[in-house]
């Protein structure tokens, strides 16, 4: 029984113009408990929506079809069986400003694990240490902590749930780069040591290359490439993936010219026909404008592109 299997997942939102598909026929797997799956894409690609769909946090004006099997249980059919923790980007918004950190974490132990208050407090102290926070954090309020510390609190809360799956949605995007590095190191180490599978959502391919084991690239609601991370970087297949890799400035080398992808990422409801990347693709053929490519399966990768069919 693998930790996560997403089958034919679609997410639609109801807008003034009717139903709009934001996540389109996504199939993903996490094969082992110590695997981190990276989900990479730009704004509007649906990666955050996918994360919300898996964790059951979509707003009421949405519709989900397909299956999300967490340890064999379909959480779309049985929402109450979900044991999925989410780590959001904005820690200040995710934390209750009038409760201490200790109260908020202990609450999880008391309600989800049915513990006595005393035991909950003990566990709280332990998990705070695990994420690298000092003991006295228990009595602090969210606004008294720094951004990095708050994010660690979110990680601690996720761990407290003892979840079957963690979804981290751009958990460090709002932090300074030095703080980000430290927090991510902590995150990676705790999920690996506790053997909790994680979906790591980010727009930063470089981060994904360091944090994730496998990477799925999303564009316009679809997965357009999935590969083991070494494979993805050594042999990127989809033109979008290649373009992404070459359009980002680097700290470790001088780049003469960044690769420019013309145009802008499309918005749900206005996706192009055929291959959704075709208007921006330097290799677009006539076929690409009319027919949607399916996933082509290689040894360590899958691509959605006619160049490979």
């Amino acid at each position, binding site marked *: 029984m693998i930790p996560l299997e997403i089958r034919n997942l679609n997410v639609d939102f*109801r807008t*003034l113009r009717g139903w709009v598909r934001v996540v389109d026929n996504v199939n993903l797997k996490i094969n082992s408990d110590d695997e981190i799956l990276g989900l990479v894409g730009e704004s509007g690609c649906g990666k955050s929506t996918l994360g919300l769909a898996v964790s059951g946090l979509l*707003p*009421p*004006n949405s519709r989900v079809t397909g299956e999300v099997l967490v340890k064999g249980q379909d959480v779309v059919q049985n929402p109450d069986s979900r044991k999925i923790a989410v780590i959001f980007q904005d820690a200040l918004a995710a934390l209750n400003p009038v409760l201490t950190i200790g109260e908020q974490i202990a609450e999880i132990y008391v309600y989800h694990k049915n513990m006595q208050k005393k035991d909950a407090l003990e566990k709280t102290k332990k998990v705070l240490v695990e994420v690298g926070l000092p003991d006295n954090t228990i009595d602090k309020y969210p606004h008294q902590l720094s951004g990095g510390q708050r994010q660690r609190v979110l990680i601690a809360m996720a761990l407290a749930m003892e979840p079957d799956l963690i979804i981290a949605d751009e958990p460090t995007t709002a932090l300074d780069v030095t703080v980000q590095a430290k927090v991510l190191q902590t995150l990676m180490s705790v999920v690996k040591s506790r053997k909790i599978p994680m979906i790591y959502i980010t727009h930063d391919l470089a981060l994904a290359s360091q944090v994730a084991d496998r990477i799925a690239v999303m564009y316009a609601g679809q997965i357009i490439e999935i590969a083991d991370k070494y494979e993805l970087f050594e042999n990127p297949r989809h033109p979008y993936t290649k373009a992404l890799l070459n359009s980002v400035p680097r700290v470790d080398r001088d780049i003469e010219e960044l690769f420019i992808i013309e145009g802008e990422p499309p918005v749900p409801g206005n996706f192009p026909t055929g291959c959704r990347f075709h208007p921006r693709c330097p290799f677009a053929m006539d076929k690409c404008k009319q027919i949607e490519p399916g996933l082509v399966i290689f040894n360590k990768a899958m691509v959605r592109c006619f160049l490979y069919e």
Partner: protein
Amino acid sequence: MHRVERISNFLAIRRIKYGLLLLSALALISLLVLLFSPFDPTETSYYSLAKPLSTSSRGWPFILGTDSLGRDLLTRLSYAFYLDVGVGLVIITISGLIGLSLGLISGFIGGILDSVIMRIMDILISIPGFILAIAIAAALGSSLWNAIFAVAIVSIPIYARLVRGMVLSIKENLFVTAAYEAGVSSFRIMIKHILPHVMPIFITQASMELSNAILYVAGLSFIGLGAQEPTPEWGLMMSVGRKYIREAWWYPVFPGIHMFLTILAFNLIGDGIRDYLDPKRKLRS
């Protein structure tokens, strides 16, 4: 969330519709009466003193009766409609413009000027409106214009505070900083960038204040500090008519009903507009 939006949206529009309907009906009737009435609103007639629905000496019907001086009530009420509403409009215009300017200056310039203006506003607001209006009107002398002046003064703080609050928050917008960066003068920034964002809420507030203004003037007139005889004005008519409530109940009652319906119409419209423009509704755009 969507369904709730649409329901409240619908209710708001309905309110506006009914309010407008009522208001137009009242306005139209009053207009027609004024155009075609054979009676002069101030001409007294010994012959027709305090008569209910009946006929005058020349054969024209007193549809709502006459008052204690023999003047046709319907004609007077139609006159009063336009007078009171007109007075209300004058008041909200004067107090609105002054309050708007004070609020803009106060919020935009800040500093000591802001403190001074706001303290004056605080003083005005801390005294119950009607009492203050009485005090001012009494000090100035009993006349309709003085009543207008008094009510206008009392209404200024509401606008000043509202506008100032809005200016303070709009001022923080990046596009205001950008305008300053582009070399635009402070005055132009106030007019071109800040004012347009203030206007919708300001106008909504003003339209809601209209009924208030009318009520205040009618109230002042009722106690003798506003309109004076022979001016046809709701408050005055109700005040004088009070004495005759046993013999000629129509004299105080009809003005009351008339005023009530008019204020109701304005309130419906104002509430409808306010609900329609409710910030929670901004989700739709």
